[in-house]
């Protein structure tokens, strides 16, 4: 299973790198957020598209990363002895990964669960977490935590350009890092995990360990995206952690293409841009359109609207080379 053709991926990241020179500060700042949603979408594409784990609560890890970042940099908990951004980021990723590890152990340990059961349990877990955060006054309850310090980049910390470039660099690094990982033996094992887990178990591999590993990795990436998002947005709210965002990311990934990381990444960005432009003018018609597109694409283009042409191009390029 390959991802998008490498030249396309390079062109996408290079093109995104040029955007701040074309757009004004406001849209650059918005686009930084969308790129982080794209990174978040990549984490689900890895877990769902590549490993076959249909997680209905991926926003749990995005939100945990975000809240960890917010509480550490704001000094909410006295037990954490530092407030600097970089160690906070590391801690946020670690906490999200640990949470994903716990959830993965609960889901996959022993015979494990899958399919509709896994979807239901992850959905319920996300709902629980959102309820807990909404009721937790230390975390600002329904109001969330505002005034989260920005990343310390240069003299004017609210200049969106350095933030944008850092965020884009992180997304590119994760993308190409995952690409390398998926080209390795781990990628082959993931494909086997998705298509034929019984065979994999027969050959002596631990299906549980593989599932736990990929789920934890996905949780860490989602946590990274969430932590950077909160630092960029200066705000951690319960809407980042619950069912609604989990369902939204599922729509982005399904529409873009679940098994192609670049397609999931791009779909998240494109849908958020479209939403920014269209949701005001279209009102309820926007969600109606998105829902219809989502439904039709699942039925008619199961590989995804963006991934299908990308995979076709990939196939052509390989045949000619």
């Amino acid at each position, binding site marked *: 299973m390959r991802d998008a053709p490498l030249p396309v991926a390079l062109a996408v990241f290079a093109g995104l790198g040029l955007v701040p020179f074309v757009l004004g500060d406001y849209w650059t700042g918005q686009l930084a957020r969308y790129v982080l949603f794209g990174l978040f979408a990549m984490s689900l594409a890895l877990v769902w598209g590549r490993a076959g784990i*249909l997680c209905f609560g991926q926003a749990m890890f995005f939100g945990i990363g975000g809240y960890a970042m917010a509480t550490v940099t704001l000094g909410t908990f006295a037990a954490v002895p530092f407030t600097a951004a970089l160690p906070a980021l590391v801690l946020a990723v670690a906490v999200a990964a640990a949470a994903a590890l716990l959830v993965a152990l*609960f*889901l996959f340990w*022993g*015979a*494990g*669960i899958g*399919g*509709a*059961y896994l*979807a*239901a*349990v992850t*959905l*319920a*877990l996300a*709902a*629980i977490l959102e*309820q*807990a955060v*909404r*009721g937790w006054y230390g975390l600002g309850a329904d109001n969330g935590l505002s005034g989260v310090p920005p990343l310390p980049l240069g003299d004017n910390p609210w200049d969106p350009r350095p933030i944008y470039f850092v965020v884009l660099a992180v997304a590119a690094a994760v993308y190409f890092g995952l690409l390398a990982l998926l080209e390795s033996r781990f990628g082959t094992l993931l494909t086997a995990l998705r298509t034929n887990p019984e065979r994999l178990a027969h050959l002596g591999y631990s299906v549980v360990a593989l599932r736990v590993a990929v789920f934890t990795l996905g949780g860490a990436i989602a946590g990274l995206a969430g932590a950077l998002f909160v630092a960029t947005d200066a705000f951690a709210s319960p809407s980042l952690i619950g069912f609604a965002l989990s*369902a939204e990311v*599922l*729509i982005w990934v*399904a529409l873009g293409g679940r098994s192609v990381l670049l397609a999931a990444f791009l779909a998240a960005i494109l849908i958020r841009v479209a939403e920014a432009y269209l949701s005001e003018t279209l009102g*309820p*018609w926007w*969600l*109606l359109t*998105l*829902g*219809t*597109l*989502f*439904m*039709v694409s*699942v*039925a*008619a283009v*199961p590989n995804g609207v963006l991934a299908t042409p990308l995979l076709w191009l990939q196939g052509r390029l390989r045949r000619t080379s």
Partner: protein
Amino acid sequence: MGAFLTWAPLLLDALSFVLVLALVALGLVVIFGLMGVINLAHGELFMLGAYTVVLAVGWGVPFWLAVVLAPIAVGAVGWLVEVLLIRRLAARPLDTILATWGLAIVLQQAAVLAFGPGSRSVARPTDATVTFAGISYPAYRLELMAIAALVLVATMALFARTRVGLRARAAIADPDMAAALGVNVRRVRAQSFVLGAALAGLAGALVAPIISVDPHMGFGFLVPAFLSILAGGGVSLGGVLGGAAIIGGADSLLGHWMSPVVSQIVVFLIAIVAIRLRAARAAGS
């Protein structure tokens, strides 16, 4: 005696919630059991049932006739959905979760556009109360419980006792062999989707007078119904009642001891543990 007077109405409220939830969950389980389809648009079919009653009563249709019309109208919607969407996904059952989630968004937004985002209400057919052993309780809620219980029993009897139900069970157990014996498996599946949709529509119609009807009301019933069927074992009709009793009973009773937030969390935790245990046992056997 004092405790009895306080508790009896609460228990009756819980029971009526459990029965309505079981009706919604029964529709889900018919669809899940026969087609392997998790219908995430089920809550919206429930919502459409409630709106059918609101609209019909607004046009001067008598309430009980509107309650009969609702499952017919929602069943027709279900038939369209089966033909246009579900049938195309027969080979990819997990993708139906996504497609029906898209459908849920579409139906919700369509309801917002058609009926406005605000909530509507419909008058109860009767404001009478029934007094028994010192407790007075609204008559409509008792009627609702009786109808829900009757429909639950009738649906179960349909599957357990009739030839149509036998063919449906055969189509679940071994679709190839059922087809070779002359069962039109595709039609059985379409019928089951229509039946499931109609049950959701009926449940929505019955609760329309006692809750506020708005385009987003479905989700609040979908999640507990979904958890009920998985906690109750997935496909057995008896399990539906058990699951609904655990989830619905806990949901409506725990609220009296603890904050709604905590009670929601406890209910979800119970559901998760039940699903995890059940799935592990199913895989082990």
